[in-house]
Every structure is written in C-alpha cells, then in structure tokens.
C-alpha cells in the first residue's frame, strides 16, 4: 500500500468546553440542548457593548497544578487538558517511547489556535505599564506564541515527528486535523494528535469583535443570543476551550487493538479571495472546498447523513454556507441532518474545528445528531433540514458526516468522516 492511501482512523477524543470539562459531559450537554453562554460579571466588562460569553465550564486552574498552569497561556491549558483526555482515551498509558506501542519519531502534534496567547500578552502589558519591565514574566514569549499549545502538547506526549500550528482564524482547528491527515497519508507519521484551542475572553478581543459588528449584543438573554439559521440571528457569541483527537493509521490502531470511533476520509480546502472578513455571499468559495472534498475522498453526497455546520449565527455567514451546501450536494442535501452546535457552545474561533470534529465523531459513533437550539423561526432562505430543538437519530449502516469550518481571511476547510 502506498503512503498516499493509508486509512486514517480516530482512536481518541478529548475536549474542554463551555458545556463540560471533558468530551463526555460536553456531549451530554449537546444532546440535552444546553447553552454555555453566561453574563460576564467582572467589572472589566462593564462598559462593553457585549457583556456575555460562553466561558469554559471547568476552569483549567481547577485541573492543572498551579506551577504548570502559571507557565501556560489559557489556550495552552485547554489544549493540554483536552490532549491528556484524548491520549488516555486512545488507550495510551504514557509518553511515546515509554508507552512502547507508539514510536516518538512516528508521532506528531498539530494543535491550532486562531488568535494565540492574547490574554497573556495583554496581562503582561498591564504588568509592564503598572509595575515596570522587570515584572514582565519570563514565560511571556512561549505563552503568547501561537505554536505554544501545539508545542506543549507535543512535549507532553513525546511527539518527535513534527509539531505544527496552521493558522486560519476560525478554520484553524479543522485545518489542523486536515494537516494531521496529510502527515499520516504522506508517511511522515503513524499517529498524530490534532485539533484546536482558543482563549480570547477578555475585554479587548470582545470590544474588537463587537466593533466589527460580528457579535450578538443581546446582553439581557445570553443563552438565547446564539441562534444559527434563525430569522433574527444577529451575530456570534464568543466561546473558549479546546477539542483534540488522536488520529492514526488503521494498521497502527489494529496492531495495538485500539477502539476506533470513526474513519477520517479527508479534507477539502479552498480560499475565497474575496474580502478579509466578509463571507463570499454566493458561497462559491465554500462550494469549491466541498467539491474538493468529494474529489479528494471519493465520498458521494448520497452517503452523507449529517453536517456539523460552521453556522456562527451571523446573518451573511449562515446563508452563504447553506447556499454552498445546496450548490454542491443538490437534492441530496434534503436527507442530511444539519446541526449548528455553536448555538450551545458559542464560537470557539480556532477551537471550533476541534470541538465540532469531536461532536461530529460522536454523532457518527452514537448515531445521533445534536440539536440546534434557539431556532424559533427558520430563515426563509435556509433551504435545508436543520435539526431543531432535540437530537435526531441517524440511520444504521455505513454513514458519513461533514464538518464545516470557515475563517476570516476567506479560509474554507471541510472534513469528512465515516462510521466504522
């Protein structure tokens, strides 16, 4: 078998999200239709146009020892927590090498963030301004560099085949998983841990996103603010956390008797070349990524039963996505159960592709699609079958799903997964 057609499977998942401190509690909350959005009580947010967000359900300071946590940006803390869960969930018991079932030279890590260690940067600027240069932490650089989470995860599990950090705004987490698939298919690695993380809940990023008119300003009802595909949707709700998965060749998984959640068929990637932040309104850019996905993987639209939509709850973005899905999938779109889990988790930016891939894997594994909450009046232009209010069972037999992720800059990344 040549290295280009190796079968890639998922053997471990990990997440820490606004809905739960691990993937099991997150999944339970997704099926229950719970919102993770809450009012931000801290007085630092008092004068802001947006005073709510979907904060992590379990603060990383409750999980990681303080001496370790103080050297890591919050985004790296989330990544490390999700990585430990995914690594153990895959059945690995120690770092590569110490656990002899994985060779460190054949193990990679690809963990992305859209923004990087921005809260560390801003906090250290406060120290510089208020207390002087001597009080700037010597850990600042590794805390603010965007590859920090990936490198820390790589150190944690002993990954020596390469540690990478693709950056494509809100498509970053999905692009990381696509990159991991390529690392395995091109023969660089047999096992790769991959996903996305983000921690941007701070007055500055919130003010900045709010001034772009990208965020919902419904301070009175945070849990209702994220409502993808609803006629009255008015912007995204910021979330934070991480979602990571362990990918490996089917042969590697079989050789060690690992449990397999799903097969990763591959990715489709395109770029809009249209506007730095506005979504391309016809959906042509996204459609190109979807076509690339079908060509790349041999997947047929008739096999796709579920789509975890990018759907951030912005007026233009949600519509462009549906237009693209209809353009490429045609009438097959009618039998796809479409879920917008950001209605519950908020938008984790670079972490979104990570936790939504985890959700897509669990949807295939348990054969049930999570609901889209807060959808009271479907936008007339949304010509698709959105899973509303409660979860929906998925068919038996071999089924496939697509996870969409798009980012500022016009990045489009779509992933395809198949049940096993």
């Amino acid at each position, binding site marked *: 078998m040549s290295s280009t057609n190796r079968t890639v499977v998922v053997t471990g998942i990990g997440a820490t999200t606004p809905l739960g401190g691990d993937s099991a509690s997150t999944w339970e909350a997704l099926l229950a239709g719970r919102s993770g959005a809450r009012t931000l009580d801290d007085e630092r947010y008092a004068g802001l146009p947006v005073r709510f967000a979907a904060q992590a359900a379990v603060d990383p300071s409750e999980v990681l020892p303080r*001496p370790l946590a*103080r050297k890591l940006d919050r985004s790296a803390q989330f990544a490390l927590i999700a990585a430990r869960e995914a690594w153990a969930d895959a059945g690995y018991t120690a770092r590569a090498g110490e656990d002899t079932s994985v060779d460190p030279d054949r193990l990679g890590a690809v963990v992305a963030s859209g923004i990087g260690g921005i809260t560390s940067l801003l906090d250290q600027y406060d120290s510089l301004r208020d207390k002087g240069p001597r009080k700037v*932490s*010597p850990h600042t650089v590794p805390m603010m560099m965007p590859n920090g989470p990936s490198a820390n995860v790589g150190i944690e599990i002993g990954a020596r085949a390469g540690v990478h950090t693709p950056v494509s705004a809100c498509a970053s987490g999905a692009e990381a998983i696509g990159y991991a698939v390529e690392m395995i298919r091109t023969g660089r690695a047999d096992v790769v841990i991959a996903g996305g993380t983000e921690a941007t809940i701070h007055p500055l990023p919130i003010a900045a996103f709010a001034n772009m008119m990208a965020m919902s300003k419904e301070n009175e009802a945070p849990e209702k603010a994220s409502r993808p595909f609803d006629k009255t949707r008015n912007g995204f709700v910021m979330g934070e956390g991480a979602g990571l998965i362990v990918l490996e060749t089917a042969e590697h998984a079989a050789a060690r008797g690992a449990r397999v959640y799903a097969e990763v068929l591959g990715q489709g990637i395109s770029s809009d070349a249209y506007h730095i932040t506005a979504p391309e309104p016809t959906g042509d850019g996204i459609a190109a990524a979807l076509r690339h996905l079908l060509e790349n993987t041999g997947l047929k639209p008739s096999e796709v039963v579920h789509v975890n939509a990018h759907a951030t709850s912005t007026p233009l973005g949600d519509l462009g996505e549906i237009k693209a899905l209809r353009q490429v999938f045609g009438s097959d779109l009618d039998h796809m159960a479409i879920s917008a889990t950001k209605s519950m988790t908020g938008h984790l930016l670079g972490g979104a592709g990570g936790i939504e891939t985890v959700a897509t894997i669990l949807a295939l594994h348990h054969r049930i699609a999570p609901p889209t909450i807060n959808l009271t009046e479907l936008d007339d232009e949304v010509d698709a079958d959105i899973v509303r209010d409660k979860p929906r069972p998925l068919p038996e037999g071999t089924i496939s799903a697509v996870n969409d992720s798009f980012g500022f800059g016009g990045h489009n990344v779509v992933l395809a997964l198949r049940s096993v």
Partner: protein
Amino acid sequence: MAATQEEIVAGLAEIVNEIAGIPVEDVQLDKSFTDDLDVDSLSMVEVVVAAEERFDVKIPDDDVKELKTVGDAASYIAKHQG
C-alpha cells in the same frame, strides 16, 4: 534589618514552592535549582525577581548563572542585601 541566613532560606523555599510547586521542606542549601527543584532557566528568572523584592537586593543577569544551588543564592543575598 538584614535577613538572617535562616530567614533567607525559608524565604527562598516559599518562592520555589510558589513557582515550581516543590514542598518547602525539600528546598535545602545543597539543592540545585535546575536538577533538584524543577526550576528551569525561565523559572529561575522568576525566582530571582521574587527574591529581589523580598530581600531588597539587586541580582544582575550576569550573576544569576552563578547561583546554582539554594546555598549559592542564600550567600549571594546575605552578602548583597540592602
């Protein structure tokens, strides 16, 4: 009033505990910051800055590399404290 050697070691133990999580009773004169106390080169800068504040002493970067053990640091602080 200048701190005694005992007070300096106790103070360093609290600082190392705060930064590296090592129990205070393990922070002894003969212990190496790097090899025994899990204080890497970056964390050592934190130890130095905290010690400077606590003992009213200046420890220039060039002198930091000479401070290999808790005893080295305690002697340096005892000699240079203000």
